[in-house]
Structures are given as C-alpha cells and as structure tokens.
C-alpha cells in the first residue's frame, strides 16, 4: 500500500529557540556552542546568518569566530530545547500516533491513516508548519513522500521554512541531480568510495547495477541502491516503541584531563549512575559491562566483562568498569574521555536465579538504593543527593551525565 510519510526538521533548532526567546538576537549570527572551559567548545547549531558566513556545526568556536568575528556565542540550554521539542511532538501527535523522533529537532510522521481526517499530506504539512510557527515561533522544513528516506531528502531540499513533495512523478527530476552525500547513510567515507567510482549524484547511484555497489561496499551497497531509487520499507516507529534498544551507554569528555585512578573512578561512578538510571527507565538490567577509554592523544580502546547475574546497580557497574580499567590502562598518558556501557540487556521482570552468596544479596540492596536516589532526584533535582566521592573534585563532580546536553539519537537500522 502507498504510504504517506512526512519528515519534519526544525530549522537551526537550538539557535532558533534562543532567538525566539531573545528577540534582540533575531536576524543576527548566533551559534549555540558547548562550553569552551569544559572542552566541549564546538558549534552545536548556527543561525542562518551565521551559516551564510561559513559557520558550520561541529566547528571549533575559535574557528567559527574567524569566519564571523561578530558571532554571538551562547551556551546550550538543553532543558529548554527538550521542552520545545516535546511541544513540537505534541503538535505532530495531534495528526498521527506514528511519530518517530530523530534527535530533538527531527521526526518522521506516518500520516497514511490521517488523510481522511485532516486532508492531503501536503495539507497536513502546511497545518503543521503553520502551527509550529504560531505556537513555538519556529520554522520547519517538511519533506512529503511515500517513504522515510525520500521524505528526509525532501526536508533537506529547501530550507528554511519550506515544504517539498517528492513522489514517483517528480522523483527523477528532483532527486537525481542531488550530490550523493545528501542521501541518508552516505557519510564522508562512503561518499569518497562512491565518488572514486564516478557516483557523484544520487541519480548515478540509482542507475548503477546493484552488483557493482555490493562488490565495492558490501551489504550497505544494496541498501544505498534501494535508497537512491526511493525504495525504503522501514516503518515509522510509534512514539512508545522502546524495543530494539540493545545497550545503554554514556561517555563524557571531561573538563580537564584525568591523571590518576581516583579521577577515573569518580567519572566511572557518575557515568554508571547515569547508565543504571537509564536502564531502570527502560525496565532492564545488563549482563555485560563495557568500559571505553580515550587518552589525550586520542587513542582509544574498549574492554568488556560479563556479570555473574543481570544487574542495574550503579555500584556494580562502576566497580566492574573500574577493575576493567585498572587491568587495561598503564597511564602512559592522561585520559581525555571515558565511557560506560551496559549491554546484553534483559527485561527487569525476567526471572533471576537467586543466589546463596551474600555478594548477590548485596546487589539487590544496591539496586534499591539506586531506585531511591532516582526518586529523590526526580523530585528535588540531580544534585540533591550525591556520593561523597564526587564532592572530592568539584570540577568533575558537578557533571550530570544523564541530563547535561546528552541527546541519544537512535540508529536508523536499530531493531
């Protein structure tokens, strides 16, 4: 059956939210950037006037200032962006229950079942665009198509504040001339390979025999060939769809380099608390703990270990991660970033083999403590209760890995 898919993209989202609430910034080059003191000093989003002067997402702040000396640099306010993102999703959900967010600023909507109620997909796109402008003061670009990949091409096609319909009748005319990088899942590395064999546009990719692509790129070659031809059957997942999560991880580049075991231990405690809290939100425990380390020379490695029984205790995660770290790192140079991952997830309601050993009874106790901490924090704020260890270093200890600008985009091929 023919589907009707919209892809809605809030233009220059973080910068637009800031400009909405501070009218004096409208029309000026604005960039929302991570804090330079925390060494997150890159551009997260630039406003259109800043983009026109060459400022790009991912650029270092000093670099951006070279392109645009009068750039207004703002720190991110993730709480506000999440609030506005939720309000935008409220609008989408009045048109369909099939809303799949892609980061804070993008979402796919399957409106196949809604056309009888609200009018054609183009009409729905216009209503959404008008309402987001009126209710949230933001502009959106919307792509209208019969699949997710082409809908995303449509929303990228014309920005800001535009609606682009790409369907069978105008597909070749609109999509074929686009550079191959515009296609979802063609990153710099794949683009280089494709361009090396003359595939510079989506049209060329679409017309290339699929065997050539699978020969060069492997399995993804076939996927890209289908995408280039506007064939994508992946469903828009419902908002409440949480299945398919395979692991929960959190990492942080720290405000200063970590130079000793105590520093790393402190960070692993913070990260483990965040990972274990998110596992509890998902209602699962992990059976494998992984630690990831990147040193000051940007060399990185990961090590993992299976647990004796499923756990979501932050204490156990941190202890396992720290012992993995101690076994694997020899302090040739300071550490720049660390991460903790809980993998091999199992549902919390799954039966657990009880144990006679006191060690395993402690696990349950720790999980109860963690759950109590969750409740306190949701009521009185993150910093209302903390481990004594994290007060030892105020610079590292004030990091809140769970809520501090962490957006957890899910992969396109999840599940």
């Amino acid at each position: 059956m023919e589907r009707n898919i919209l892809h809605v993209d809030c233009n220059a989202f973080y910068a637009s939210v800031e400009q909405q609430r501070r009218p004096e910034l409208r029309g000026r080059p604005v960039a929302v950037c991570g804090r330079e003191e925390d060494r997150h000093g890159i551009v997260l989003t630039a406003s259109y006037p800043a983009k026109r002067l060459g400022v790009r997402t991912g650029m270092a702040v000093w670099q951006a200032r070279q392109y645009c000396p009068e750039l207004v640099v703002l720190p991110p306010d993730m709480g506000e962006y999440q609030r506005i993102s939720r309000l935008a999703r409220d609008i989408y959900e009045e048109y369909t229950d099939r809303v799949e967010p892609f980061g804070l600023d993008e979402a796919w909507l399957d409106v196949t079942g809604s056309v009888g109620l609200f009018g054609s997909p183009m009409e729905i796109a216009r209503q959404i665009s008008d309402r987001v402008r009126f209710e949230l003061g933001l502009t959106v670009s919307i792509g209208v198509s019969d699949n997710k990949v082409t809908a995303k091409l449509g929303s990228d096609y014309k920005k800001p504040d535009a609606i682009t319909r790409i369907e069978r009748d105008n597909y070749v005319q609109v999509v074929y001339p686009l550079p191959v990088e515009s296609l979802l899942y063609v990153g710099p590395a794949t683009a280089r390979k494709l361009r090396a064999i003359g595939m510079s546009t989506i049209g060329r990719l679409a017309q290339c025999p699929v065997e050539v692509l699978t020969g060069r790129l492997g399995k993804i070659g076939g996927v890209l060939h289908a995408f280039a031809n506007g064939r994508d059957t992946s469903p828009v997942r419902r908002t409440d769809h949480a299945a398919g999560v395979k692991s929960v991880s959190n990492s942080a580049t720290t405000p200063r380099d970590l130079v000793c075991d105590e520093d790393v231990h402190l960070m692993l405690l913070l990260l483990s608390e965040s990972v274990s809290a998110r596992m509890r939100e998902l209602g699962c425990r992990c059976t494998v703990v992984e630690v990831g380390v990147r040193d000051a020379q940007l060399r990185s490695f990961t090590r993992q270990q299976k647990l004796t029984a499923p756990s979501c205790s932050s204490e156990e995660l941190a202890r396992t991660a720290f012992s993995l770290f101690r076994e694997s790192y020899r302090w040739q140079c300071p550490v720049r970033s660390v991460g903790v991952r809980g993998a091999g997830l199992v549902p919390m309601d799954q039966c657990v083999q009880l144990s006679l050993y006191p060690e395993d009874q402690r696990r349950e106790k720790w999980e109860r403590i963690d759950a109590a901490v969750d409740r306190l924090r949701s009521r009185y704020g993150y910093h209302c209760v903390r481990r004594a260890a994290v007060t030892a270093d105020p610079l590292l200890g004030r990091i809140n890995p769970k809520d501090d600008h962490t957006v957890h985009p899910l992969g396109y091929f999840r599940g």
Partner: protein
Amino acid sequence: MDREKRYVPVVVRFERDGRLRPLVIELDEARRYPVDRVLDVRRAACGSVGGVGERYTCLVNGQECDLWLEKGRWFVALKI
C-alpha cells in the same frame, strides 16, 4: 513600539476541572487590574518579547490584553 517582558504576580483561581482562571493582574502596588473575562486560551509563541507557553487573551477594563503562562510564571509584554 518597544515592549518589555515583565513577569507579574497574578491572582489565579483553580477550577474544579483543573483549568486556571486569572482574576487579577498586579503590575505593581498601584496598578492592580481585575480580569473581566478570559476570551481565549491557547498555546502560542510570544513574538514581541519572546517566550512559549499558554496565552490567555483577557478582557481588562474593556481592552483585550495577552497574559502568558510560561514554565509556571506569568508574564505580559509591557509597552515602554
């Protein structure tokens, strides 16, 4: 005309169904304005001074004025 975002104290009645009904807007000690009627409530972005929340269009002294509830605080776009 220049406007300023002014957070203001508001006397509010909680209705049985959970709706809020602003009764008095207190710009300052001397200027307390009773709200005669609420004409419209909807989510809206405030273009002039910035902000996103519930917009209460109120009738005050025979004049329409917009009162906004954003993240638990009330504000008006005051002419200056």
